[in-house]
């Protein structure tokens, strides 16, 4: 079975989506990410578990992804961004993140642990929110979403530096940041 036959097999992909979701949910829960107190604690800067989990995932994933890409097994999915899309959308998301105390994936995980606020507020709220966005999308697409396009798709392109140079610098910075957190006992 080649990668192409796996990727184009619709039924297999449905099963893979479920299986990867199960692994993701398991890891999120074991990492403490399905707990409202941990996530809100991160936003209140009293608990740094969310950053620890995210940065560890990026440290491992960034190296793994670019090695796989170098040998032609995966392709880049990054798209060009814009202030109107990423900054405005990101800030709206942030407000919701703080009020709900979960993000989309961790809200689903919290439901699995028995958090009813994550089910009624989070899951139902997000379906409503996504539905509202679908309603206004045609108006936004032609206007605000396109405002202020970013000058590059990837960070190496932005900095005009070699991919591997940027990658090593980023890895060193992320590992250094985690060491600093540990040093200060955060």
């Amino acid at each position, binding site marked *: 079975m080649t990668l192409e036959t796996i*990727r184009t097999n619709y039924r297999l992909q449905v099963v893979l989506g479920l299986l990867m979701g199960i692994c993701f949910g398991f890891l999120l829960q074991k990492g403490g990410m399905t707990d409202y107190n941990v996530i809100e604690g991160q936003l209140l800067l009293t608990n740094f578990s969310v950053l620890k989990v995210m940065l560890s995932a990026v440290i491992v994933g960034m190296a793994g992804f670019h090695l796989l890409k170098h040998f032609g097994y995966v392709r880049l999915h*990054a798209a060009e961004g814009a202030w109107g899309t990423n900054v405005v959308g990101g800030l709206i998301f942030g407000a919701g993140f703080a009020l*709900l105390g979960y993000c989309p994936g961790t809200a689903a995980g919290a439901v699995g642990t028995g958090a009813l606020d994550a089910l009624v507020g989070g899951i139902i709220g997000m379906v409503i929110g996504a539905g509202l966005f679908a309603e206004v999308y045609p108006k936004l697409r032609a206007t605000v979403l396109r405002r202020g396009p970013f000058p590059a798709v990837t960070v190496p392109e932005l900095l005009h530096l070699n991919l591997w140079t940027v990658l090593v610098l980023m890895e060193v910075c992320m590992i250094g940041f985690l060491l600093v957190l540990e040093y200060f006992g955060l």
Partner: protein
Amino acid sequence: MFIVLEFLTVATWSPYLAGAGIGVLSCLAFLLSDRPLGCSTAFVKASGLIGKSFNAKKTAVMDYYREIIPQADWALMVIPGIMIGAFISVLLSGQFHLAWVPSLWEQSFGPSPLLRVVVALAGGILLGFGARWAGGCTSGHGINGSIQLSLASMVTAACFFAGGIAVALLLFRVIGGA
């Protein structure tokens, strides 16, 4: 064997270990499914499927549902998957319990489930709306976009936390007064 069992039944792992596992899983999603391990697309698909059951004609011609087709595929199944995975994890550690109000919330805003659900619902709506506006969530942009060294994803992730920290501090340190 006993060590493996104990490893699975312990309540929490080191955040570094759980994070590293998520990093490996993200690479597997790119490799086997040719897509980032994101969560927020599922909510578009769910809203589209609900829309289809009420007004199939209108939903079929909406631009957003032509780009993100409402169907039970990889991107939708990941959400029930996460629920099941987290459920298995708490079941193994014996920590499953139903609750409306998290303790940190209760300390500042009291034990009323109604107040908690109203604020959570407002948050959920903003989260779903904002995630689709930005084109991804904490996993799609924050982890999987950053993995690819995507400029847009790193800027988005910074804005998630900038907005989140500002509103959380306002909520708990100003309104909540603690």
